[in-house]
């Protein structure tokens, strides 16, 4: 996989590669933007912030494209790379203190009125940011430990441990809510 999306510079040989065209980028965006938007909304709890981070994610991808062109032939790796950029952006945002996740109530119309047995927003609010991310990647994106590790920058062992804790907390929530025994 390519280098993490923080720092680094383009080599002259890589810079000589043609930048991605608008049409090719549109195809890539259509295929990958929606899952990343869902991930960002679940992680930060606000659609406006999530949309801004989504734009920034793809912006960074475009700016680094010459050194990432090899990923074009490997869509799963490219997808993981995008999740990695999004994860780094979320982490930077939290570190800068720009906003605590779920600190503000979600905007009207953003909170889905689901006829589901589980109040997902309440569940996500109960979890730590990292746990939310891991749970989302495991359950919604169906990633295994190695893929989650590549998408978050954590080691596989850490992913395993943190995911186990996140699952335990989610199960606790479900049993507390009386959804499961």
């Amino acid at each position: 996989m390519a280098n993490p999306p923080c720092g680094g510079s383009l080599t002259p040989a890589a810079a000589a590669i043609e930048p991605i065209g608008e049409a090719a980028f549109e195809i890539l965006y259509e295929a990958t933007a929606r899952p990343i938007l869902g991930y960002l909304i679940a992680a930060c709890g606000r659609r406006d912030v999530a949309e801004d981070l989504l734009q920034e994610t793809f912006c960074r991808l475009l700016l680094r494209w010459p050194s990432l062109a090899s990923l074009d032939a490997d869509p799963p790796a490219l997808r993981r790379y995008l999740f990695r950029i999004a994860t780094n952006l979320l982490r930077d945002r939290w570190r800068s203190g720009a906003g605590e996740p779920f600190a503000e109530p979600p905007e009207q119309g953003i909170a889905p009125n689901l006829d589901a047995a589980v109040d997902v927003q309440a569940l996500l609010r109960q979890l730590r940011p990292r746990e939310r991310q891991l749970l989302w990647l495991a359950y919604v994106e169906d990633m295994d430990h190695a893929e989650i590790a590549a998408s978050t920058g954590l080691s596989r062992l850490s992913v395993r441990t943190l995911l186990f804790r996140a699952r335990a907390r989610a199960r606790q929530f479900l049993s507390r809510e009386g959804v499961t025994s």
Partner: protein
Amino acid sequence: MNRPVQPPVHATVPADDLLRQSLRAYAAAVTAGGPVPVSLVWFRAERRRRALALRRAQRPVRIMQLIGLLCALLAAAWGGARFIHLAGLGTLLPRPNLAEPFLLLLIAGSGLVLLGCCGMLLASRQ
């Protein structure tokens, strides 16, 4: 000592299934509106790319400006001190003298600025 009995792995499966279904339903609901238009992202990236290119291009100009300013300040300081001495206003001050390496540095700096200016002028005409 009584240890709490861990539930078997399969006991967690219904909760896992429920969690998966709920999270996926939530994902479908929150992304129903779709992401921002691709043109917006493209425009933002283009603007950023141009800003970065501009900053990169301006770097040598900034360095040249800094060297030029430094040379001008040093030359002005030396010229002022020389004038004061020649006018007999500052007889108590030591006569300003340019040490040879300092003079060479000043000339080299001025030459560099002039060369940079010529280079940029030529580049701007192409």
